[in-house]
């Protein structure tokens, strides 16, 4: 039917012809087939997420008790206990990282977007920042090990919470710089001109006008960077090490949830495996909440 409606092309090339869709054509069949393949690929891509979240919620969620957050992990072979020290340790180490990376990153980002005017130095720093973002996290760990742990530069202490926090700060820094740079670029130039026009100095303009109006994109990036740092393990294994006790000071080894998962997953005891799942649950829930928070943040900013 479809082929009969199309007349010979030469005499009525510019006439209106009824359009028709023949699902049996080879091109339409392959179109459907490829759509199916792409859908299948998308399903395969989501499958691991669903499975991981399901297992973490089920295996870890049923271990959720108050004691989990208030007790120390049991000695190998014994039952019970919690991951209180690791939860606290993760917060401490991440806080140290944030306190170092946010001022440095925001400051560097301000220079790139407000002062540099696209000179060679700014281009070099942006390039270096992208390269730094691609440095494997374990390399950051090796670097901090060599620079701080092995050299015993911190009051002659070796493994410490501070070293772990600094390693995470190195990982966070590129993200913070990038989001600050991009966030400040979004601020309209008229806003700055307005501030200059009423006699504000450069410093006042940046601190009182430009930074506040770029607050949401910067905060979104910072929240994402913190969430990522909180889940990092590799740089902590030989900088913060691990400790089965409550944190003593910033200069002694400290427990973190991610290293606890790594250490306990391969232990042959059921209690340790259970705690590893419980720690995964707490960590994943924390990180997913931070991510959704960041998305909510940026959706507010776009309104």
């Amino acid at each position, binding site marked *: 039917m479809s082929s009969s409606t199309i007349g010979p092309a030469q005499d009525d090339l510019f006439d209106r012809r009824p359009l028709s869709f023949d699902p049996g054509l080879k091109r339409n069949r392959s179109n459907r087939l490829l759509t199916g393949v792409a859908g299948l690929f998308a399903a395969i891509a989501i499958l691991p997420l669903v499975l991981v979240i399901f297992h973490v919620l089920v295996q870890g969620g049923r271990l959720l008790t108050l004691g989990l957050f208030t007790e120390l992990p049991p000695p190998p072979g014994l039952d019970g206990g919690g991951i209180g020290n690791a939860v606290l340790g993760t917060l401490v180490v991440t806080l140290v990282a944030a306190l170092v990376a946010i001022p440095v990153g925001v400051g560097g980002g301000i220079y790139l977007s407000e002062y540099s005017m696209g000179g060679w130095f700014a281009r070099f720093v942006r390039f270096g920042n992208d390269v730094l973002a691609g440095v*494997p996290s374990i390399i950051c760990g090796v670097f901090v090990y060599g620079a701080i742990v092995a050299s015993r530069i911190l009051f002659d202490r070796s493994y410490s919470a501070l070293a772990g926090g600094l390693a995470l700060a190195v990982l966070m820094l590129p993200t913070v710089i990038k989001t600050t740079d991009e966030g400040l670029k979004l601020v309209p130039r008229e806003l700055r001109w307005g501030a200059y026009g009423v006699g504000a100095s450069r410093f006042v303009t940046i601190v009182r006008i430009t930074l506040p109006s770029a607050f949401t994109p910067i905060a979104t990036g910072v929240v994402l960077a913190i969430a990522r740092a909180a889940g*990092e393990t590799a740089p902590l294994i030989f900088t913060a090490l691990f400790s089965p006790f409550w944190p003593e000071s910033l200069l002694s080894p400290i427990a973190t949830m991610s290293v606890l998962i790594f250490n306990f997953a391969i232990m042959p005891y059921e209690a340790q495996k259970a705690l590893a799942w419980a720690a995964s649950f707490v*960590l994943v829930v924390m990180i997913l909440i931070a991510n959704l928070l960041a998305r909510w943040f940026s959706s507010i900013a776009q309104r």
Partner: protein
Amino acid sequence: MTTDSSNDAFTLRRRPAFERFLDIGFRQLTLALASVVALLLLGIFLTIAEGAHEAIATFGARFLVSSAWDPVNNQYGALVAIYGTMVSSLLALAIAVPLGVGTAIFITEDLIPTGLRSAIGLMVELLAAIPSVVLGLWAIFVMEPAIRPALQLLHRLLGWTPFFDTVPQGPGMAPAILILVVMILPIITAISRDALNQVPLELRQAAYGIGSTRWGAIFNIILPAAISAIVGGVMLSLGRAMGETMAVTMIIGNSLNFSFSLLAPGNTISAMLANQFGEASGIQVSALMYAALVLMVLTFAVNVLAQLLVRRLSLRY
């Protein structure tokens, strides 16, 4: 400084010395903070090179082609780990690229309703946020037992090739590759999606206007227009895959013996670092630093290449 106009505006009134001081001081402060990036890169390189110096002097280039890793006799060679790093990341890439680009096409090309599209996009992004160590835990206790029958079948069918000639018994190269696929899929998907979204609407409309089907337009017009950004994203994820540590360390088996078989336990540079650094001493630390230097040079090269690709070739039509 090219901000002549704004500087003129400042000079119209006499600025107090304190205000000038604050302006200049703040500028210098942010300049110093921006150079932290450069100092860090230099510091990372120098620290690792300094640490590796002893092993480089002792083993030289032999380190790269020898598979002897023997802490008792102080003989070190990183061939097993280097081979494992390359094989695991390249094979993971080979699986993840079609999956990731296919997913990106699925969620950008109007094949499904908008709500479902953003839901899939959100889920893939959340997958990127799950810590590597949690994926490793899942890989040990859930994924590896689940896929072992399939791997055993593979061994029975293809056991005569050197790539499948060991009986799979738990951790090994194949599960590590699969978990790497899970880890780099979100990156490839996100970057491909952004690249595809940037292809101008006119280009698509022109393609449909001359009567091509949806997939005809995708293969002949849209993908070629976005290809350089996609290739850049693929390179970035290759760098990520080579440096990925925790999930791989937990599932790859950390073998120090060389094997072509994908079903046998293997090793990667990052897994070796994660496993041995804490307990190493003496020249072993130096040998590990040497391995770290190799990893760093590899990822550095891949990342710089990716940056150049993204910058030089970005969206030309």
